[in-house]
Structures are given as structure tokens and as C-alpha cells.
């Protein structure tokens, strides 16, 4: 049942790229081993997982060298023996109902109908999803969706389970849900497990082997978690992996708080339907307010409302400290008046990209407010956020960390005194995290105010002066 993996001089190059994603990989994973696969960004971890799952594509998609075997036969012919769970919960749900979605893989493998439904029940039980089979999948939380994806994989009875950053998009509760489900499943089935994840501490207890890939090809280190931590811990942390016992450096803060920039009174927020009532808070120059709370409690909606992007349902958003001649309600400001007063950074950077290059992306804000010397504003920012070398690159092709840095930079161009950041450190590696925390501390010390909507307790510790915990929402919406 459980499957072994063997790579001999294996390499892969994506079509149209000059460099190899993976090269000269020699590796053997025995049946039943639980492996954590690490490596700096660009070391080819995801490529290897997709190759093992047989979804890299054929010759149109790229070029390969060497062999990649699962139980002695070529990986691309082992579909069904291998189950893959990806990072984004949204794009893994295939069908509209829980039971149908879990059954999908079995159908494709030609499992007889009675057997499918037996497996569906068993798989849902194994991942701890106690839901009716006809429950709409769109109503599930992120953690539930990832467990659903795992159940779908499990129902196929794979000998090898591959997880590609399965918890990167989840809130802390979701992370624990998924980790525990994986632990139960591997214990019960004995399937071979290969996990890729930046947040090593989640998996450290569960795996019995850690393999570190070297960018450009080959294996950098291979051993038990203890051996790797002792030998490679510091180097891994420096390359961006979250290693237990090697936390990123927290920036120093000088707490010098200025006048109030914005406050809210009896604010009700929501898109049409109110999710929260009677919210009160104020934010002063030079201070950071962290907003936390469960998924669906309206944190992002609050950010959009105080950021002048959504109209309040009731109550007041008073930005008297930012208005400088305008009315006090930011929702009534013009777009170009808004950007010099409040900068909003969305959770998904891609939603905010509007230009074909990184440099043009930063110039957008500068031009919108009619700055005479655009380059004088943009160049130092590119430098500060290590984007100078990427100035002519299309924003959509950047890595996750680079996209995040760029989306923060686009808000900084117009130098707004108040920044609203929605999950700014979500899914970031340790190195980008430390850079962002240092940048935020620097901005705060320079007199800016930050509202940080975040699940990241470490970020709260690092920069927040106060915390607003959103209560359980007043009306749980059907969406």
C-alpha cells in the first residue's frame, strides 16, 4: 500500500525558462517515512511535489532529465497512487457538496459506486469533518476546506501523500486542525508523507526525516529533525525557513505617540448586512493598533471602512487628524485625496497591481497626486524594499514575498500618515517577515500610524501598542 520514492539524477526545467527548477536530484524516501522538505524559495520544492503527483505536464510544459520513480515505476504513471494537497483552499474544492467533492477522486479512478461512498464516509471521519454529505462546500472555513481536500486525497487510498504548504493560507485554528488531521491520517494508513512548509514548527513533531534542497540542484542536508536543527538550524533560518529556536529578530520600538489621527464611534460595518455594531477605537500618530478575531468577524471589512473604501452602515468614522481641509469622513474623499492620508494594503497583493512593471506600479501613486519628480520618490523606495533589481519585472511574476513588499511600497509612495495593513505577514517566510517588521517599526518611529489586521501573534508582539479583539459577529452571514 505505502509507496517508496526514488529520484536518480532527476531534473526539470519549465518550458521557456533558461534555468532548471531542479537539477541532479538523487534521493530515496522509504515507504512509510514522514519527510519534511525544506529549501530556500526557488529550490524546486513545489516542482518536485508536482512531478511526484504526475501533474507537471508533458513535454509541452517542460523538459526533464534522469528518472523519478514511485515504487519502481515512472511518477507520471502513478496517478492515483499519489495524493497532493495544495496551498490555496479555494482552488482545491472541485464540487459543490462535501460528499461529492470527496468522491471525485474515486470516480476518476473508476472505483465502484458502493465502495466510493464507503470510502467517503471513512475519509471524512479520518480528517474529523463531521458534516452532512450534502453540505455546500462554499460554506466551509479555510481549515475545513483543507481537511476536505485531504479527505478527497485519502479516499483515493494513496500510498504517498504530498502536502504543498497546506497551512500557509490558514488562521491559527485552521493550522492546528489540518496538522492534527494529517497526524491521524498518517498514523492510521501508514502512507508515506512529504510536506513542504515554511512554518517548520508545525510539523517538527510529526516528521521523522528532514530533507533540505539546495537552490540550483541537489540535496543540501538530510537527516532526523534533531540532526538538521543542530547542523543547519541557523543557515535555514537565514534562508527564510521558520526553524524552532531561531526566531526572527524583533525590531526595537521607541514609543512616542502623537495626536489622534482617526477615531470611530458606534460604528456598524458590513457589506450590506452588518457584521459588527458599536465598534469604538482611536488611532494616534506613531502607534500601532492590531485588530484580531476569528475568520468572518469583519476584520477586513473594518479595515476597508476606516480606510475610506466602504461606507459605514451606521456610526461615525472621524479622520479629523488627517483631513487637512477636507471633511472628516474618509469615504467622501476623492481617491487621490485618500492616498496622501490613508494607505490601504490588501490581503491579496495581486488585487492592487495595476501596472506592467514594478517601477510603473510605484509611479502610479506618485503621478496620481501630481508629484513633480516621480523618480526622486520612487527610487529610494525601490532600494529600501530590495526591489531595485526587479524594477522592470511584471508584478504578477514576483514571488510571494516580493509581491508583499511591492504592495506595501505602493502604499508608501504617497507617504500617508495612516497605514492599514490586512494580514501583511501572512504566509511569508522568516526573512521577509523580519524585513517587514523592521520596516513597520521604522515607519512607526517616524510618526506614522498603523492599523494591522493580523492573526500573527509574533507581529502583534513585535509592533503593536494596543489590540482590538473583534467580538463574535452579530449575524453570521450565509456566505
Amino acid at each position, binding site marked *: 500500500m505505502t509507496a517508496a520514492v526514488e529520484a536518480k539524477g532527476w531534473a526539470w526545467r519549465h518550458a521557456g525558462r533558461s534555468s532548471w527548477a531542479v537539477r541532479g536530484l538523487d534521493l530515496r524516501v522509504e515507504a512509510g517515512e514522514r519527510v519534511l522538505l525544506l529549501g530556500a524559495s526557488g529550490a524546486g520544492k513545489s516542482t518536485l511535489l508536482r512531478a511526484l503527483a504526475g501533474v507537471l505536464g508533458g513535454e509541452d510544459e517542460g523538459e526533464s532529465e534522469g528518472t523519478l520513480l514511485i515504487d519502481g515505476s515512472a511518477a507520471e504513471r502513478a496517478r492515483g497512487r499519489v495524493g497532493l494537497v495544495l496551498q490555496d483552499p*479555494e482552488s482545491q474544492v472541485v464540487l459543490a457538496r462535501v460528499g461529492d467533492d470527496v468522491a471525485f477522486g474515486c470516480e476518476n479512478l473508476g472505483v465502484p459506486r458502493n465502495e466510493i461512498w464507503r470510502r467517503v464516509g471513512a475519509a471524512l471521519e479520518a480528517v474529523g469533518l463531521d458534516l452532512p454529505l450534502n453540505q455546500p462546500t462554499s460554506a466551509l472555513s479555510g481549515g475545513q476546506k483543507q481537511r476536505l481536500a485531504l479527505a478527497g486525497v485519502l479516499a483515493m487510498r494513496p500510498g504517498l501523500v504530498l502536502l504543498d504548504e497546506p497551512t500557509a493560507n490558514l488562521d491559527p485554528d485552521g493550522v492546528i486542525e489540518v496538522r492534527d488531521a494529517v497526524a491521524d491520517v498518517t498514523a492510521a494508513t501508514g502512507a508515506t508523507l512529504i510536506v513542504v512548509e515554511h512554518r517548520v514548527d508545525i510539523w517538527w513533531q510529526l516528521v521523522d526525516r528532514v530533507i533540505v534542497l539546495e537552490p540550483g540542484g541537489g540535496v543540501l542536508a538530510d537527516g532526523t529533525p534533531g540532526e538538521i536543527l543542530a547542523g543547519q538550524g541557523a543557515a535555514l533560518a537565514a534562508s527564510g525557513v521558520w526553524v524552532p529556536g531561531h526566531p526572527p529578530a524583533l525590531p526595537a520600538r521607541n514609543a512616542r505617540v502623537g495626536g489622534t489621527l482617526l477615531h470611530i464611534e458606534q460604528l456598524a460595518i458590513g457589506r450590506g448586512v452588518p457584521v459588527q455594531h458599536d465598534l469604538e477605537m482611536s488611532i494616534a500618530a506613531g502607534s500601532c493598533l492590531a485588530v484580531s478575531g476569528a475568520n468572518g468577524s469583519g476584520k477586513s471589512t473594518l479595515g476597508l471602512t476606516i480606510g475610506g*473604501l466602504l461606507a459605514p452602515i451606521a456610526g461615525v468614522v472621524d479622520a479629523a487628524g488627517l483631513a487637512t481641509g477636507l471633511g472628516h469622513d474618509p469615504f467622501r474623499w476623492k481617491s*487621490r485625496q485618500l492616498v496622501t492620508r490613508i494607505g490601504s494594503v490588501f490581503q491579496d497583493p495581486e488585487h492592487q497591481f495595476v501596472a506592467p512593471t514594478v517601477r510603473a506600479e510605484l509611479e502610479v501613486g506618485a503621478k496620481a497626486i501630481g508629484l513633480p519628480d516621480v523618480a526622486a520618490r520612487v527610487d529610494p523606495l525601490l532600494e529600501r524594499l530590495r526591489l531595485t533589481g526587479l524594477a522592470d519585472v511584471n508584478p504578477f511574476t514576483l514571488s510571494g514575498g516580493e509581491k508583499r513588499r511591492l504592495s506595501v511600497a505602493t502604499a508608501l509612495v504617497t507617504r500617508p500618515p495612516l497605514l492599514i495593513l490586512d494580514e501583511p505577514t501572512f504566509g511569508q517566510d522568516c526573512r521577509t517577515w523580519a524585513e517587514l517588521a523592521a520596516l513597520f517599526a521604522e515607519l512607526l518611529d517616524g510618526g506614522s500610524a498603523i492599523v494591522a489586521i493580523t492573526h500573527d501573534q509574533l507581529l502583534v508582539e513585535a509592533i503593536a501598542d494596543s489590540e482590538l479583539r473583534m467580538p463574535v459577529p452579530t449575524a453570521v452571514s450565509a456566505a
Partner: protein
Amino acid sequence: MTTLLTPDVGTRAVARINPVAKLAAAAILGVTLVISLDWVSAVIALGCELVLLPFAGVGARRLLVRTTPVLVAAMLAGLTILLYGRASGDVHLQWLFVTISDGSISLAIATTLRVLAIALPAVILFITVDPTALADGLSQVLHLPSRFVIGALGGMRLVGLFVEDWRSLELARRARGIADRGRLRRFAGQAFALLVLSIRRGSMLATAMEARGFGAAGQRTWARESRLGWQDALLVTIALVIAAIAVTVSVLVGSWAPVLA
């Protein structure tokens, strides 16, 4: 809980009818009524449909909401024909291009009734269709290639995400300082951004589906069986009977007027 892809189809007999049979019934009525332009066949078909309406298991409120667009469309179609239709018989009013005559009045009534008679059963049958069941029927009953049918079904789930994406894109443009001017250009840019995001999401979904063995060689099985039963035969028979009565009566009273004649 109901969503776009998991509608509440009710528990009445209609909900258990195979979507393929509903498709066939709506097609039979539609094709029959498109052939002729007279009002007799339309009135008879519409009358039969209204008699059957209470059995559809759709609440009055929902029925009204879903059929309002059809009612409006039927009225507008009638009005257009009334004002601009081919004139014949007595002319009652003439002003610029507008001519209201006996001929255009009867044609307008016939058109309104016809649009209602075709659209009403289609709307009723389709608001009670579950997309998953339709996909099962298309693949298992009509044997359309499952690759396309299931692929389309998977893709439909992304539509809801696109709506969310669009809203975020719009707010993001205001947050970037570029929402004051150039509405048209901004719309184009936003549409392009949505396209990029949707291709990205689509290819991720495709990878996820492939990873679950979709498109693999070998025979696919079906977790949900879709086959035709007596209810389905009954529905199609009813549609055939309504069509037959409408045509027969229309021919007998001499008002049958095929469009191609």
C-alpha cells in the same frame, strides 16, 4: 442552506425528475411554439402550463421573483410588435414610424403569449435543476464527454470567486489613488486584471483536479447514478401532449400560421 451551485430544489416529484428530461420537455414546447405565429396555439399551451404550475413545487414568492424578467420581456416584445409590427387591417394610429393596426395588435398579443408560453416552462424547470445533477445527467444519460461536462461544473464554482475578486479590484483602485478619472480605461484595466486572476485560479483548479486523477486513462465511475425513470417519461409525455393539443386545435380552428410557410 442554498447557494448558486446547491440550490434548494425542493422535495416534490419535480425535484426528482432528471434534468435531462426537463431539458427535453422545455425543448419540445419551445420548438413547437417557435414554429407558428398564431395566438391560439400559444394560449392553449400557456393555459395547460398554468394548470400544471401548482405541481411544480415552487413557492409563489420565488415563482414571482424568477418569472418577473420573463413577464417584463414578454410585455416589451409585445409592445415593440404593437408599435412597429407589419400593418394590416384597420389602422388606428400613425405617428412617425409607429403604426398601430388590427394586424399589429393581434400579432402583439400572439407574441406576448408565445414568449410566456415558451419561457415559463423553461424557467420553472430550470430553477429546480441542480447543476451537479445536470452534469451527471449530461454525462450518464446523454453520454456527453465527461471531461468537458465535469470541467465546466468545476469551473462554475469559480464564478462566485470572480464576483469577490471584482469587488476587491474596484476598492483597490480607489486605494491606489486612480479611481477619480478615466472610468472607461480603468474598467478595461480591471477587466484585464480579473482575466489574469481567473486564468490563475482556473489553472490551479485544473492542477487540483488532475491531482485527483481527473483525465486519467481508464473508465470513470459515477458516485451519483443518473438514469431516466417513469417520472421523466411522464414529464416528456406531458410536454408532447401539450404541444400536440396546441397544434391540433390551432390547425382545426384555422389559425395555424407556420413561420416558414
